[in-house]
């Protein structure tokens, strides 16, 4: 049983492309839930809007790549407006129910066979990511090394001696773009949150009536937070779609949204770096558990009579669900959150 391999794998994933998707989605959610107190349970749908907006406009409409990005962002805005107008005036749990329903509508429409000629039905779509990967500024046969970082035929390897991180040609590019996006968005977020605008958002989270009595248009502020968070969700959708070079409707289930929440709460809501920390830890834990169990089974450390390899997935998700419940009960502020900031209630 190769612990070094398991650990290297998990560490590779902990800062890899999928972790970036969770980080970006949770950053959007942080603005909505962490700072404004909006219970958006449809973040997966915003990611789907981005991913499908890009895929549909490039594949089905034959538009250039950048138009696809613009359309994906616009789709997320439109969806935020459509969801926000009826529900933001109501209680928080109404927004939760409506967003969860809307996310399911989006997913079911995307997988409907009626339009499968365009959307690909449950198979999803591919063939939109080539322009993105053509932008890679180095060649496939690039080879260099610098201290412990090296590139071998386009593949990036970071060798720390005990363990080694390896990324494929494309993953490396997704990571460069993804981490740049995360950095830019975090800087913008930090400025926004510490501006007067951000203070109003926190005010709304703590006491909506008080903010309203100060003459602020609470509805407009909530809507801005919902739209901005949705746009960041759409960016997560872009990274998700591009890193896998396909979109599939069933990737955007409500579970996807719930993992954004796990990530956010694990890291600490209402903290700028919370989502990034949470995403890294969540994805590290998932991978070390899943890989470790699979390795343990194949090495006969755990006899197959106890659990077989098809049960590893459910078991890991069970443990993550359990972890989420325990976390919320015993440490609702997560790793770096502030407990006092998260005592808000519905209404």
């Amino acid at each position, binding site marked *: 049983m190769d612990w070094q391999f398991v650990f290297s794998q998990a560490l590779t*994933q902990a800062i890899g492309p*999928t972790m970036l*998707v969770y980080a970006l989605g949770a950053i959007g959610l942080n603005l909505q839930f962490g700072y404004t107190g909006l*219970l958006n349970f449809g973040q997966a749908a915003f990611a789907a809007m981005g991913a499908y907006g890009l895929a549909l406009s490039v594949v089905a409409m034959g538009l250039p790549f950048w138009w696809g990005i613009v359309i994906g962002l616009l789709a997320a805005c439109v969806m935020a407006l459509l969801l926000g107008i*009826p*529900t933001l005036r*109501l209680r*928080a*749990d*109404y927004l939760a*129910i*409506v967003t*969860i*329903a809307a996310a399911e*509508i989006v997913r*079911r*429409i995307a*997988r*409907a*066979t*009626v339009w*499968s000629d365009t959307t*690909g*039905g*449950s198979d999803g779509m*591919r063939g939109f990511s080539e322009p993105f990967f053509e932008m890679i500024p180095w060649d496939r046969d690039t080879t260099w090394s610098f201290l412990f970082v090296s590139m071998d035929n386009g593949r990036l390897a970071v060798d720390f001696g005990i363990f080694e991180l390896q990324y494929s040609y494309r993953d490396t590019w997704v990571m460069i773009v993804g981490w740049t996006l995360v950095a830019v968005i975090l800087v913008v977020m930090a400025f926004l949150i510490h501006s007067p605008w951000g203070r109003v958002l926190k005010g709304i989270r703590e006491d909506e009536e008080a903010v309203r009595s100060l003459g602020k248009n609470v509805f407009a502020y909530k809507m801005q937070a919902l739209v901005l968070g949705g746009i960041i969700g759409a960016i997560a959708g872009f990274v*998700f779609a591009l*890193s*896998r070079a*396909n979109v*599939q409707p*069933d*990737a955007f*289930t*409500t*579970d*996807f949204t*719930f993992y954004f929440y796990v990530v956010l*709460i694990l890291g600490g809501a209402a903290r700028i770096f919370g989502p990034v920390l949470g995403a890294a830890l969540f994805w590290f834990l*998932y991978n070390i558990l*899943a890989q470790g169990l699979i390795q343990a089974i194949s090495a006969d450390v755990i006899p197959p009579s106890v659990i077989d*390899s*098809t*049960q*590893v*997935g*459910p*078991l890991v*998700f*069970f443990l993550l*669900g359990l972890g*989420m*419940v325990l976390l*919320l*009960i015993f440490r*609702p502020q997560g790793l770096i959150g502030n407990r006092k900031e*998260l005592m*808000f209630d*519905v*209404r």
Partner: protein
Amino acid sequence: MRRALLLLSAALAGLSLCLGVSSSAAAQDAYGIHGTLDDQQDQPVEGVSITVSDASGAEIATVTTAADGTWAVPLDAEGDYVVTLDESTLPEGLVVRNCKPQLEVNVTGDRTALFPLDTQVDGCTPGESPGGGETPSSSEDESGEPGEESSESEDAAADDAAADEVGEIEGEGGATRAISLLVSGLHFGLMIALAAVGLSMVFGTTGLTNFAHGDLVTFGGVMALLFNVTFGLPVWIAAIAAVVLGAAFGWAQDWGLWSPLRRRGTGLVSMMIISIGVALLIRFATLFFVGGERQRYTEYVGQPPWDFGWLVISPKEVVTGLIALAVCVAVGLALVFTRLGKATRAVADNPSLAASTGIDVNKVVRLVWTIGGALAAMSGVFLSISDGVKFDMGQHLLLLVFAAVVLGGLGTAFGAFVGAMLIGVFVQMSTLVVAPELKYVGALAVLIIIMLTRPQGILGRRERIG
């Protein structure tokens, strides 16, 4: 391009798929068509002959399925191929459910071709010219790989409460079909109502929107499966046991989790997210122990329906529907006439005021959880008798239950009942105009429209929404 087939990645990849860990697992360099033939019980079907020919009709290969139901035909090049299943080689009683024993496959790699097998056809006439027309959505129903959460999720437990019956008479008069859909809608509505009453009352008494309520439905179905299949008891005993265990589960949840949380003063938002965690826990525990396949009870599976000419309905639907109706009426009467029922409504109306009049609020909440758990379990058992048990059945029902509860008015038991009946009928009747796979979309759209126009629901009162 025909989408009758699903590009399935490796069986295990299914779960990780929804998390995005798997890259595209299908090898793109080898061409071929393969598949696994399962019957409706997910048992492999052996010795069925399958022919692959190219677009011009020239036969390339004929294979028979192996003992584990698998078959594969390697190909030399990409292109369109026709896969034909020889129905005469199928075991006695099995048919291709969507009447499409011939599939056109566009091969760009190693593709999967699947034939849904069942004991009766679904919404088509056997012998219909094969390969023609759009492939109905039901072709996906039995095709998901075990453990692959994603591809089979459309096959929601609640999905086709009476699809088998409806399917048989499809093609006859529209009025007959409408009546059948109405009846199946009422049945489905009663199933939703059983779950919705509990959800609505929990909300009414504690303010908690319980996202784990759907998984209480799954719990009922699974417990009955345990007693029926594992212990070999008759379904009716298993059903009773499941309802009792459902009540115990509801009680235990409140005793062990929600009641302590309320005492700690945990915020409702935190509790809502905790309920999501609980939902994940129950769902993945079910997946762990039961597996990802749809499983059926040992009785009432291929029950011959009653044919009244204007209505075809199977006896199990009538019996479960009547029991559900009786239970709903009993709960309603208890709420109106018994002391505890009155206390429950008082707590739902205003917990503080109820407490000040001497009602033990925590006792009432515990009771609501117990009854809610029992009703949800009953709903799960009844749905499973029709459609079989699957680990995510409750998850898919949950959104319809939300729609019902919001339509009727959050926090009101009677509203939940009315809303559930309306949603059930609406979902089934909407298939007259929209594709069956989109019927849930309609129901969820109704939910959003109600939010927009009358957020307090039909029987709710305006002040509830704040």
